[in-house]
């Protein structure tokens, strides 16, 4: 009970934007996980590449911002993993990860 109260009243808790902003960003992770089940032709190269850079930058941001935001950090670390995986699926489907000469349509 005391732990819950501490969380509830925390300066980065559910009464603050420091909590709900990162919660909103978990939507990207969930969307990425769902999209992992889909065929790679549906993956957007532009969006996935942008996400990889975006989450990389925001991992650093979450670490450096005051107060340090671990929820945001974990969110973007997860998204980075998911988006890198999706990007590799896209690249493989395009033939970029073959050992021989890739055709690479796009």
């Amino acid at each position, binding site marked *: 009970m005391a732990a819950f109260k501490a969380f509830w009243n925390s300066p980065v808790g559910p009464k603050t934007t420091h909590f709900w902003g990162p919660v909103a960003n978990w*939507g990207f992770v969930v969307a990425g996980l769902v999209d992992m089940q889909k065929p790679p032709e549906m993956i957007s190269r532009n969006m996935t590449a942008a996400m990889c850079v975006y989450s990389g930058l925001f991992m650093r941001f979450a670490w450096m911002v005051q107060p340090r935001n671990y929820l945001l950090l974990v969110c973007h670390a997860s998204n980075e993993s998911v988006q890198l995986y999706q990007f590799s699926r896209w690249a493989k489907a395009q033939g970029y990860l073959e050992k021989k000469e890739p055709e690479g349509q796009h």
Partner: protein
Amino acid sequence: MAASKIQALWNHPAGPKTIHFWAPTFKWGISIANVADFSKPPEKISYPQQVAVTCTGLIWSRYSTVVTPKNWNLFSVNVVMAGTGIYQLARKIRHDHFSEVQVPAKE
């Protein structure tokens, strides 16, 4: 005079030498990527992804006005992001439910 103003900006604690500048600035890349994808066929649009883009854009637009100080850069990037998400969703919904008569949308 102008030089010292530029120097002040350059050395600002949330200026271009810091992540506080580049992370929000790069967030524009998501909107740019989405705009580039406007020309893609709607079959390739991902509902979960565009819902995520729209919702985060809307939530962060709201929150950027309640933080101190108000962050208009963060506000504008998220408004535009939500806008691109809504447009992509509209394209896909229109394609899936309001155009094809023969083949039902598999999604």
